[in-house]
């Protein structure tokens, strides 16, 4: 019997939600690390019992946690994230040079094949790699030291590397996204990087189609189509079909194309999900209605999914790491809100139920399909 495990990071701890393949009855366990901000919890695809968690606090700094038993017990892992060279400066909000400073780990991306290998995307934007189960970390400095690095400027949430996408057909190819520098691609396992933002247009930067400077919120890939990526940008929903050489807009009939999350149905590579957010100054869903929008045609044509979701007086946000899909058929879709609800759909988005109502504000949602 299949089982799913949803890993939820919140502003005050981590929670683990489990269900069988029917995905109707849920057990809720937590909080783990109560009182701490948990930016991200993610499992190794190579060993489902190996979990990594980013735990942080404005008071006490960054902590990394590792579990070898699916989240029942945890042990402190390495938390030394030292830039590989003299950090130099990036661009501050006012345009002045600002020293690169480590603040926190936003995103942990375990290797697709090695349980002890994991990547960490951090603020101020850099990519780190561990090959010993998060005990020690080394920066893949070719990214941060890219010639455009001094021009990178933070978005409202900070200069964060928040998305790491591995190509399942080539361990040397990987994509990352930084707010607000944009997408970068490596073809050599992270040693060197190139901006991959051609086709993006952002009216909030002086040159709207500049090579870097775009506030990319999230990118997603279906593993069967590694050259196709979907993007939720600050404004605009985009896709590429040539490995990010060229992006094109697919916002179509969305009520607003601002948002944070985007994900792809596990069984249908052209079925994608977004949650439109009103605007960059109104970080809540439009018209008081929580609606997931689904496109079954790879974009442009979108349908609102509302069954089981609040359709009045709802003003929550859904952050960039807070949506995930399971690997069952029909595909399960999950997302968490700033109001502490985690919703799940066992039928590809047709209907939704709240798994939990009242957690702390949700920062991230990941899901494992087990058994």
């Amino acid at each position, binding site marked *: 019997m299949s089982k799913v495990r949803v890993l939820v990071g919140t502003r005050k701890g981590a929670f683990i939600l489990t269900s069988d393949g029917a995905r109707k009855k849920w057990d809720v366990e937590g909080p783990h690390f*109560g*009182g701490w901000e948990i930016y991200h919890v993610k499992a190794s695809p190579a060993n489902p019992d190996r979990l990594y968690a980013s735990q942080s606090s404005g008071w*006490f700094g960054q902590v990394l946690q590792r579990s070898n038993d699916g989240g029942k017990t945890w042990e*402190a892992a390495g*938390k030394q994230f030292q830039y590989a060279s003299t950090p130099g400066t990036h661009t501050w909000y006012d345009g002045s040079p600002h020293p690169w400073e480590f603040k926190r780990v936003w995103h942990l991306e375990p290797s697709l094949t090695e349980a002890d290998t994991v990547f960490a995307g951090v603020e101020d934007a850099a990519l780190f790699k561990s090959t010993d189960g998060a005990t020690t970390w080394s920066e893949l400095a070719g990214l941060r030291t890219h010639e455009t690095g001094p021009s990178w400027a933070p978005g409202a949430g900070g200069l964060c590397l928040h998305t790491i996408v591995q190509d399942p057909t080539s361990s040397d190819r990987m994509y990352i996204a930084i707010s607000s520098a944009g997408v970068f691609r490596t073809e050599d396992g992270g040693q060197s990087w190139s901006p991959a933002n051609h086709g993006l247009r952002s009216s909030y930067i002086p040159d709207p189609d500049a090579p870097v400077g775009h506030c990319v919120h999230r990118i997603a890939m279906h593993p069967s189509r590694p050259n196709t990526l979907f993007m939720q940008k600050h404004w605009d929903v985009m896709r590429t079909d040539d490995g990010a050489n060229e992006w094109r807009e697919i916002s179509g009939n969305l009520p607003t194309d601002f948002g944070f999350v985007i994900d792809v149905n596990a069984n249908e590579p052209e079925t994608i999900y977004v949650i439109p957010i009103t605007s960059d100054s109104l970080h809540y869903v439009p018209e008081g209605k929580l609606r997931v929008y689904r496109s079954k045609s790879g974009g442009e044509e979108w349908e609102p999914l509302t069954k089981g979701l609040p359709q009045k007086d709802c003003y929550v946000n859904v952050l960039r790491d807070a949506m995930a899909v399971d690997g069952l058929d029909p595909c399960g879709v999950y997302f968490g809100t700033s109001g502490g609800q985690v919703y799940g759909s066992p039928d590809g988005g047709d209907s939704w139920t709240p798994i939990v109502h009242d957690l702390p504000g949700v920062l991230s949602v990941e899901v494992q399909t087990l058994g």
Partner: protein
Amino acid sequence: MIRVQLPANLQTLAGVGREIQLEVPAPVTQRTVLDILEEQHPALRGTIRDAVTKRRRPLLRFFACEEDWSDVSPDDPLPDEVAAGKEPLLIIGAIAGG
């Protein structure tokens, strides 16, 4: 024995209670106490002071004998009452929130 009291989040992280007792050879200073504390509880490294520079994290304070020792040199001797175990060294998280 030197007595050190931790804020709640660090108690959870280190898996200890509110107060820890440490054997600290003289001289008893902030630095020597924190060195021993981190040696015995490695999970606390980097959470009270920066792991590299050893500077106090900005939102933590050190109190002892009703005095604020946060900005005192980490190599100055702590009060005799702390060295004698009569009074604890308090590690305090700044008040914040709403």
